[in-house]
C-alpha cells in the first residue's frame, strides 16, 4: 500500500453486551477526492466488510449526529478531513453503546431541562412581526448551532454523565446546552426571567478555557456569544435582587426570604 494513495485508520470496536474489552481494527483505505472521516467509515463497512456501528444521517453538517474523536480531537466525521493516519474513537464523556455510537441522552436531557423555548408574555401579533436584524443579532449568531455536542464532549469542566447532579460542581449543563439556552434568552421576543435556569445550569463551572470554541464545527462564539451574556443576565438579576433586599420593604418576612439557620 502506498502512503500517497492510501490512508490507515485504526477504529475503536466495542460491544459492551458481548465483549470483555475494547479492541481496534485497522483498515487501509484508498484516498478519495477531498475525503472526509465519514467517507473512511463508510468505506470500512462497504468495502472492507467491517460490521462497524457508527451514527450519522445527513453527511453535511445538519443532523449533528456523527461526532467522533479523531487522534484525540472531537470532530464531526462529515466535516473533518481524513488524514494519512487516524485513530478513530467514540466521543469522550459519553457512555459507549457500541463501537463509535454513544449515548448522547445526558446532553440532550441537560438541554431540555433548561427549557430552551421562547416564552412570550405579550401575545404574538402576526407574521412577520416587527423586528430588525440588529435586534435579533445576538441570538442570530447562535442559530447555526446543530446541537452536535462536540463542545460538551470536549469541555474539561463537564462532570462525567453518571456524576451529574444538582450540586454546585456537578450541575454544569455544558457549553452545548448553554448555547441553546442563550439562543432563546437573547432573543428579543423572549420574556421569561431565565436567571434561575442559568444558575441551575452551573454556569460558574466554566473556566473560560475556550476549548469549546476551538472544537465547534460551525464556529459558534460559545464563550463570548453565549456563556458570557448568560452570566451577565444572571449577575444583573442577582444584583437587582440584592438591591431589592437592601431597600426597605414590608415583604422581607415573607416565607422564602428568610435564610435557613
Amino acid at each position: 500500500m502506498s502512503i500517497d494513495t492510501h490512508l490507515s485508520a485504526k477504529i475503536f470496536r466495542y460491544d459492551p453486551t458481548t465483549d470483555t474489552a475494547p479492541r481496534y481494527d485497522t483498515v487501509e483505505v484508498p484516498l478519495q477526492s477531498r475525503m472526509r472521516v465519514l467517507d473512511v467509515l463508510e468505506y470500512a463497512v462497504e468495502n472492507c466488510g467491517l460490521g462497524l456501528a457508527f451514527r450519522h444521517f445527513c453527511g453535511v453538517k445538519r443532523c449533528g449526529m456523527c461526532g467522533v474523536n479523531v487522534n484525540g480531537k472531537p470532530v464531526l466525521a462529515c466535516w473533518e478531513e481524513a488524514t494519512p493516519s487516524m485513530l478513530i474513537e467514540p466521543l469522550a464523556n459519553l457512555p459507549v453503546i457500541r463501537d463509535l455510537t454513544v449515548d448522547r441522552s445526558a446532553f440532550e436531557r441537560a438541554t431540555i431541562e433548561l427549557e430552551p423555548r421562547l416564552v412570550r408574555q405579550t401575545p404574538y401579533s402576526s407574521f412577520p412581526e416587527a423586528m430588525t436584524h440588529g435586534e435579533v443579532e445576538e441570538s442570530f449568531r447562535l442559530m447555526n448551532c446543530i446541537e452536535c455536542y462536540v463542545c460538551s464532549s470536549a469541555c474539561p469542566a463537564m462532570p462525567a454523565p453518571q456524576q451529574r447532579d444538582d450540586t454546585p460542581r456537578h450541575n454544569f449543563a455544558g457549553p452545548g446546552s448553554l448555547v441553546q439556552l442563550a439562543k432563546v434568552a437573547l432573543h428579543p421576543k423572549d420574556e421569561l426571567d431565565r436567571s434561575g435556569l442559568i444558575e441551575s445550569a452551573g454556569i460558574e463551572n466554566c473556566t473560560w478555557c475556550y476549548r469549546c470554541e476551538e472544537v465547534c464545527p460551525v464556529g459558534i462564539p460559545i464563550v463570548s456569544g453565549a456563556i458570557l451574556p448568560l452570566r451577565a443576565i444572571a449577575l444583573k438579576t442577582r444584583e437587582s435582587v440584592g438591591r431589592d433586599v437592601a431597600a426597605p420593604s414590608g415583604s422581607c418576612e415573607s416565607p422564602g426570604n428568610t435564610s435557613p439557620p
Partner: protein
Amino acid sequence: MQSSQANRTLETDVVVIGGGSAGVYAALKVQAEGLRVLQIVKGFVGRSGASIFAGNLQLQKTKDPVAEEKFVAVRARYGSSYLNDQDYIKRACRFTEDVFFPEMEARGLYIRRDERGELITSSDRAAGNVWAPNQGFSGTMIMELLRKEVLARKVPLLQETMVTSLVVTEEQVVGVTALDIVRGELIVVRAKAVIIATGPGNYLATRSTATREQCGNGFAMAYRAGAQMQDLEMQWFHASDIAAPKAWMRLHLYPNPMPVTDKTLRLYGTDRTTFFEPAMYPQVKQPYYLQLRRLYNEVKKGNARWHGGFYGGYTHIEPEIMENYSYQTQFFKHLGIDINKELVELGITWHLTFGGIRTDTHTFASSLTGLYAPGGVGSHGVGSITYVAYDGTVAAEQACERARRLTLQPLPEEQVQREQRRLQGRLKVKGEAGLLPAQIKKRIREIMTEKMGYVKSESRMASALDDLSEVRERTLPGMGLGSTSRNWNYDWVEALDAEDMLDVCELTIRSSMQRKESRGYFFREDYPYIDNKNWLKHTVATRVGDDVRFEHTPAVQKFAPPTETDDFLTADY
C-alpha cells in the same frame, strides 16, 4: 430464546411514523386533540429525514385571488408537469400563510430580515423565497424548534426504532411491528389509526439527497400491506450538488436567485463556458428541470459527465451575499475553494420522488383503511416543508376522527409471528463468501445509478430489473451480519433496508416502464416527447399476490398544458 422475542406490546390510539415536519405536525395535533399518540422515528425527531434539508421557504400571496391563481398555475406547470392536485396546492399555500409562518415565528423561527426589519427576499417581498436564517439552513432550524416542541410536550416517542411492517386485518390497519435499534427488541403496537410520514426521499442510488436511514421503508411497508402506490416513476434529480467529497453529495448549490439579488448560480461545462443560467430563459419560472435538460445536451456533446466534469459558479455574485446569507459558503471555504473566484465541480443526484402512497389530498387517507400518508411519502408531493405540515395536521384530524369511533382490534397473531420470524431470520452472521447488508445496498444503488439515472430507456430498465433479480436470487441468500448482538446492530437494520430497497426499486422501474412518454423530471430517451393527449395520467400500482397490477387514472385539471404533444427537451415545463 426463540419464544422470548415478542419483547414488548404497546397500545395507543394513533401511531405516527416519522420525525420530519409532517410527522411532528401530526403527532402534536393528535396530542392536542386529547388522544393517545406514539411517534416512532427510525432516526431522531428533527435530525434525520428530508425536512432538515429544506433550503428555501416560499412566501405566498393567498389574500390576493389573482396572485393566488397565478401561483397555482405556475406551480402546476413547473412543479409537477400538471400531475399534481391543483386544489391541494391552494389549500397548502393558505395553511402556509395562515398557520405555518405565524406559528413557527411565534416559536422563535427567525426569517431573515434587514436592518429596517424588512424580510430578505430575492425579488418579490410579498411572494418569493425567504430563509431561516440562511439559505440552506431553514429546514434545520425549523426542525430544531419542532424537536424541542415534541420533547417539551412529552409526546410519547420511540427514536432509533424502525417500523418494519403494518399489521392488517380485514383490510384495515390495526397496528405496526417495529425494531428498537438500541436494544434489539421487537415491538408490537396496537393502534386505531396509523399515520405514515416517512418522507419523499429515498437513498436508492449511489448519489442521493436522502439521508442515510431513508431506504424506501415507508413505500415498501405500505405496498406490502396492500396500499396503492401512484406515480413512483416521477423521480426528481438535482443537477447541482457537489461532486466531492462523497459525504457531501447532499450539498446543494441552489439554482434559485440568491438573497437580496436576482442573480443565480451558473453552470459551466468541462470547457468552462456557461451552459446554463436562468437568465438565459426569461419566460421560465423554475430552473430545476431546465438545468437537467441542458446538462443532458452537454453530456451528449462530451462537455460534461453525469457525475463530474461540469461546474457551478457564484463568481458573478457579490462576495458579501455569499458570506452573509448562504449556509453553504463555509463548506467551500473549508475545502480551500474561494467561491468568489473559483468554480465547484458538480454531479447529478437522485432527489425526492413526487409519487408515493396514493392519497386523497382532502384527508390524506390511503387506499388502505386506517392508514394516512401525509407529506412526501404520499403521491401528492410538491416538496415543501410548509406544505407537509398542512398534510400532517389534516391527517391527524382524520386519524383522530377514526380513532374516536373505534376500539382497538385484536392483532392477527399469525401475521405478527410471521413478521417476527422474518426479522429474527435476518439476525444471522454472514458466511465467508457472504456480504454485509451495507454491501448489498451499495450494489443496488450502483445498479440504479447505472441503469435508472436521469436518462431512461426500455432496454436499460429491463436490464436493471435483471440485475436486481440477480441480487435478490443470488446475493441476498448469502447476506449476513457482522454479529448477532442485539445491541445497536445497524447491520440488522440494513438487512431489512436491503429487502425494502429491492421491492421499491423494482416497483419504481416497472412504473417507469409503464409511462411511454417524458414529463417533468422523467425522461425516456426512447419517448422524448411530452404526450398530453395520452399521458396526462397517473400510474397506479396495486399489489396482487406477488405481482403488481397497473392502472392509469386521468389527471386533467383546471390548468392544463397548452398543446397535445411537446418536444421534451425544448418544452417550457
